[in-house]
């Protein structure tokens, strides 16, 4: 699709890092659990269940490790446990996961906005187990043109370098791209290193920590911080960027877009579909290897009591606060 206005058209690939390098699950200390069931209400996957003795049980094999329940437990009975991710894909196939990292949506929106202005196509690429198909489907509903899941147990254990070969293989399959966009950070790791490697090998201009993107300057114009200043840079294409939060307001999921997407499947590519050196992926292709993961003891938060809550005119309220500030020796 070529834009009428400018005559340019961009092939944009948005890369999302969705898979963690380790497995997390929540563990309930039954001796302190009061069985209030808040964790069950909060859990997006309906994992916690009530036991006969009216305490809560969270089965490690069902728990997705999102950690949402932990801060809500009134008795601080839930603790996250972590193990190195050694489970094969098959056991996690059944539970699907949508886009949870807000930066993922920022990255997708960045691609979509450029495509809408200049014309072109947006692919959303992610590497991980089959449960991440849902995340890519959400990207399609946002408006992306195609979703591709790079799915193969052989990919597991890949560090940034090995992951970059996987992405390069995928990009080669697509015939290259004009712009590769990734989120600046995720709870699973920092895509900027992997993207730097891809940029290096494919001769793309690399620019991380991007706070705004617009067409211009013979490629794109981006802004980023440099010490205490804000720089605007012209970046030639093809380029590989990682984007910061606040770069845009991601569009919502519209019913019309959802309807267009019905019946569309997310493509799945395995290592056999990609074109790269066979032993460069997984642990064998990695330059660093995760050896140990251990949870820190949870800091006991002090219980706060509700203090004095006041109503009144703004003058009275401001006046009372001033008095308090004086008592507290702030003023």
């Amino acid at each position, binding site marked *: 699709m070529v834009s009428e206005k400018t005559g340019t058209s961009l092939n944009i690939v948005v890369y999302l890092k969705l898979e963690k390098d380790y497995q997390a699950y929540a563990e309930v200390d039954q001796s302190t659990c009061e069985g209030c069931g808040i964790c069950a209400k909060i859990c997006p996957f309906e994992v916690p269940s009530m036991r006969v003795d009216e305490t809560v049980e969270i089965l490690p094999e069902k728990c997705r490790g999102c950690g949402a329940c932990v801060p809500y437990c009134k008795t601080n009975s839930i603790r996250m446990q972590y193990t190195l991710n050694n489970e094969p894909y098959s056991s996690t196939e059944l539970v699907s996961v949508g886009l949870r990292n807000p930066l993922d949506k920022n990255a997708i929106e960045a691609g979509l906005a450029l495509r809408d202005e200049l014309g072109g196509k947006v692919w959303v690429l992610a590497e991980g187990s089959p449960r991440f198909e849902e995340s890519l489907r959400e990207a399609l509903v946002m408006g992306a043109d195609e979703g591709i899941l790079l799915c193969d147990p052989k990919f597991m254990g890949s560090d940034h370098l090995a992951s970059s070969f996987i992405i390069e293989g995928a990009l080669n399959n697509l015939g290259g791209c004009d712009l590769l966009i990734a989120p600046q950070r995720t709870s699973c790791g920092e895509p900027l290193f992997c993207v730097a490697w891809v940029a290096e090998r494919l001769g793309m201009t690399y620019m991380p920590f991007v706070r705004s993107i617009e067409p211009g300057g013979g490629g794109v114009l981006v802004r980023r911080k440099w010490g*205490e200043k804000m720089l605007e840079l012209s970046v*030639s294409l093809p380029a590989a960027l990682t984007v910061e939060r606040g770069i845009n307001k991601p569009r919502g999921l519209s019913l019309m877009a959802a309807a267009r997407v019905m019946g569309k499947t997310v493509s799945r590519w395995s290592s056999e579909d990609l074109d790269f050196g066979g032993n460069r992926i997984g642990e064998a292709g990695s330059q660093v290897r995760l050896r140990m993961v251990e949870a820190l003891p949870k800091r006991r938060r002090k219980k706060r009591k509700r203090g004095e809550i006041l109503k009144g005119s703004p003058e009275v309220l401001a006046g009372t606060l001033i008095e308090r500030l004086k008592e507290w020796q702030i003023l």
Partner: protein
Amino acid sequence: MSDTGIREILLVVEENSGELADISKQLVSAALKLRNEWGCEISAFLPAGIDERTAMTLAKLGPEIVYRLDHPLMKEHPHEVTLQGLLCLQEEIDAGLILFGASEWGTDMAARTAARLGTGLLHELIGFDLEPENEALLGIFMGFEDQLVCKAQFNGSKPFIATVKPKVFDPASETDRAGRVKTIKLPFDIVEFKSSITQILPSPADMPDLESAEVVIAGGQGVGGEEGFAVLENLARLLGGAIGCTLPPVEQGWIDRELMIGSTGKTVRPGLYIGCGIHGDVYHTSGMDESGRIVVINDDEKAPFFDLATCGLIGDLHEIVPRLIEEIRDQIGS
């Protein structure tokens, strides 16, 4: 000589307006620790834009040699020129370990360097571990929003590349010995530039660092826009504090993400925290609930944030805060 054969550590140093960045002084500290344990030497690389005086200050902190880079194209193409300088230097001295501070600049340069050299990188390290029996060097870092400790091994060829987490090591202090300062020169026509600076825009206002401020004024959805935050900023300046926010203002573009307080943002523990127009859900409060005294200003009396308040004011922040500012000005007499 260490068991891992690292004879030399190269530090890549960052400057802020002509002064050595704090993160770089911490980096030197981290390297000195390794020198004590491994018996290696430390070289520091200082990209241009920094005068001799800063190079001398750096030399007094501990490195054996400080390499200054001088290049006319640095201002227009800082990333590429710095990278080229670093690569030329590395070819000459063949350091076994190259360390960067894990600031935005340092992380960016580390990523480019690792990509160019094709070697492994570990990010935001808080320490190192040696396993002499395996001849392995491990980096220690935090995971999953600082709830985990992880160790990863460098498995490939040298140089190993790492970024060091800020505020873990104390800044290095001046010694009475000074290392040598050498200037590196690069040929003019060094590389094809793929990016260039078109504009330099003014820096954001100076305020105390959010994470170490004793007073924090935070704003949420109720603040309503950029202008609202400007008012909060006035209050913060009067009290000598820093400004922060929750997620919704960031998403609406009213304020920078760097100022977001919460489970995926900064954690603050000021003596006084004043939250304006903030509902108080756990993703924010987990980032500030250990503050000394908490003041909550919100016109919704059902807002859960009031449960954490030392003093809560139910009212319109747009009326209360300006009056607060006026009264404080009167009290201070300025």
